[in-house]
């Protein structure tokens, strides 16, 4: 702070007009990629096998093209690798390559039959951080099926699956890369005498085609017959925050109000107000409420039945506390007149628990819904966009893809030694899957026509909320795609907000801290 700003404030009233800062406008187009059909068109009778089949059918051409280019001249001992159509067509001693879905069998992965049994007889085990038992891959010769003396302690087994069957994969190559259930890969190698496939190399579909900037808006304009060439102003910044964790107690008021004042330009001095005026949009990436999920956790259910009260099936209306949603709504309504907001639901928000989570309903925001699209005209960019999780939209011409954190957290559980969240996010982009573990360990809607989690176009910005700390990097693709991936930390714990400059796509962090006296 220099002396000038002080002089601005400590002055006699003058007759000059105060310069009023204007916020940068935000060009925004939401995409309905993850919207589910409403009402009676949403069916749950179908099985998840449809989803796996559709995922394989959509990604197999891409991965086979990459694999055939890579292994056209793959030679070992004078033998070239041949392509096999089905996973079970591999022959012993023959060098070949095949594509399929990865399935990882891990002993500590939640198994629905075991869960049902345990629920009746013993207390539930504590939730696992990682699914593997620490024994290592089941394919190693020393440790493996013989180590634990049984299937339960054998360690993880990786298999490749398609419509014909499953093929167990082994080899030292596997411990190097990231693999989770549901990823589509192509592997080259040969079948050994145990019937396992020894992997020598592995390929993934890699990043899809990336649309150039402003493609969504230009495409729409061309369709409507409007002129396409438009001179566009410099875009501002986009603020991404996640994990507000409003719980209705007084403890969360101060940080939220600090953030609100900063975004509204009411705090500090004109230089940071200038920075705040350049923020054109606020994206809230999940977990705005700390306790809004409609399904009670197992501990809560046990506590409710143990209290001696009547066992409430489902929802106990007398225990509803409206304070958190009220607080969130007031906070949003204070921000909305000035800044457009995009709200993604998270794991603890009051909406569907299975992915893709549908938008938080307008009924939760009695004050904020004046800024939402009216129900008679739901299409079009709203000022306050309550959107799905995962969400895809185009802001300032760039294609954003964001989730509330559940897919990345689930992938984290599969990888035994990996703590690098950025590596997992990059792997998910290269697999072209927003939620690779989706039907297996992550609840999701049973898609029948096609897997919606397959990325058809590469985003420019991929942000994931509710991560332990802020991290960012740029991922490059084979066709020159560049994706900025951002891991957004939880605001309630770290007080950090990510500001992404929309011209350069470089993020920076603004941190709010409260200093306690003593």
């Amino acid at each position, binding site marked *: 702070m220099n002396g000038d700003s002080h002089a601005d404030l400590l002055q006699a009233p003058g007759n000059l007009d105060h310069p009023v800062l204007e916020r940068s406008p935000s060009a925004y187009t939401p995409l309905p990629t993850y919207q*589910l059909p409403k009402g009676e068109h949403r069916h749950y009778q179908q099985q998840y096998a449809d989803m796996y089949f*559709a995922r394989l*059918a959509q990604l197999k051409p891409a991965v086979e093209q990459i694999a055939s280019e890579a292994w056209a001249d793959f030679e070992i001992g004078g033998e070239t690798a041949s392509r096999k159509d089905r996973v079970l067509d591999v022959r012993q001693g023959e060098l070949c390559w095949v594509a399929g879905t990865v399935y990882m069998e891990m002993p500590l992965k939640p198994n629905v039959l075991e869960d049902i049994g345990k629920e009746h007889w013993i207390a539930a085990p504590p939730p696992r951080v990682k699914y593997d038992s620490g024994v290592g891959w089941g394919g190693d010769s020393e440790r493996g099926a013989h180590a634990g003396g049984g299937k339960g302690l054998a360690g993880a087994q990786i298999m490749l699956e398609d419509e014909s069957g499953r093929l167990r994969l082994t080899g030292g190559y596997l411990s190097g890369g990231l693999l989770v259930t549901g990823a589509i890969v192509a592997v080259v190698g040969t079948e050994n005498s145990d019937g396992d496939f020894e992997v020598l190399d592995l390929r993934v579909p890699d990043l899809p085609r990336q649309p150039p900037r402003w493609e969504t808006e230009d495409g729409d304009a061309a*369709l409507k017959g409007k002129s396409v060439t438009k001179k566009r102003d410099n875009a501002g910044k986009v603020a991404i925050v996640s994990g507000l964790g409003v719980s209705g107690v007084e403890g969360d008021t101060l940080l939220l109000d600090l953030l609100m004042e900063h975004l509204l330009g009411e705090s500090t001095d004109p230089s940071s107000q200038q920075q705040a005026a350049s923020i054109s949009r606020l994206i809230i990436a999940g977990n705005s409420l700390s306790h809004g999920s409609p399904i009670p956790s197992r501990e809560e259910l046990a506590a409710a039945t143990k209290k001696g009260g009547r066992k409430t099936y489902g929802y106990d209306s007398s225990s509803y506390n409206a304070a958190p949603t009220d607080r969130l709504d007031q906070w949003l309504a204070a921000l909305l007149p000035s800044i457009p907001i995009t709200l993604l639901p998270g794991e603890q928000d009051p909406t569907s628990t299975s992915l893709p989570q549908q938008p938080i309903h307008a009924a939760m925001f009695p004050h904020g819904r004046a800024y939402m699209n009216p129900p008679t005209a739901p299409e079009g960019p709203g000022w306050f966009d309550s959107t799905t999780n995962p969400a895809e939209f185009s802001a300032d011409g760039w294609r954003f893809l964001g989730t509330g954190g559940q897919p990345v957290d689930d992938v984290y559980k599969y990888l035994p030694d990996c703590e690098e969240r950025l590596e997992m996010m990059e792997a998910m982009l290269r697999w072209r899957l927003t939620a690779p573990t989706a039907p297996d360990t992550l609840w999701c809607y049973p898609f029948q*026509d*096609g897997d919606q989690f397959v990325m058809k176009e590469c985003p420019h910005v991929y942000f994931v909320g509710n991560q332990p700390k802020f991290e960012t990097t740029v991922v490059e693709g084979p066709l020159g795609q560049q994706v900025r991936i951002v891991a957004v930390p939880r605001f309630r714990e770290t007080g950090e907000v990510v500001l992404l400059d929309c011209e350069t796509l470089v993020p920076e962090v603004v941190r709010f801290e409260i200093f306690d006296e003593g």
Partner: protein
Amino acid sequence: MPPKRKSTGPRAVAPTRTPSNSQATLSFHGKQNKVTKPGVVAASTKSSKKDPAVLEEVARADTKSEGTPEIEEPTKAEAAIAQQAKGEEAETLRAEPVQHYGAEEIGVLGGRAQESEVGATGGKGAAGWVSDEEAQARSVTETQIKRYWRAKESERLAPRVHQEGLTVFEKVLREWDMSGQYGPCIGIARLKRWKRANLLGLKPPVEVLAVVLKEMEAGNAKAQRAHVDELMSSRFVET
């Protein structure tokens, strides 16, 4: 607080009424309270001989009284497939082809026709067709279908058993169900499965589409659901 009365305390055991209690008792056992089903001869009447005809009647009545569940309302799975089939039928039988409209027609028709954006295959063709498969399928003749079927049968060494009573159409449809490369056949209508396979680029045979459309036009609603689907989701478990 008023003193605790014995009758208001928690009862650990169900109360047994002693005969000294003046209240009338209810009795659910005993000969005079036996409720017999109509048609079944009461076992206690000694006058009945072990007549085989009577025994048979008892046996038949027993099986009848097991309860035939009402089969009028369809299961949820059947209802879902029926709705899928109806939706596909409505789209294919629509007269005007769906294209994207010009600016004038938007006002008249109240907006663009709803394209299903759901599913990875949505948005490509509003009714699920990539090109003119429907026209091609409608121009397929019966001889073509029979030729296709003969080619399918010649792929096998042994003839198919247990398919003597089926028409060629039904055999073609069952072979379509069992072709796993086009995806699972359970939980999805046959026409929808064909469209999905087509949109995913798996090139399903057009003769199968011709058969499905012919069955649809003939009003055969049962042909939309795979036969194994009916078997697998049957409500009645055979004992």
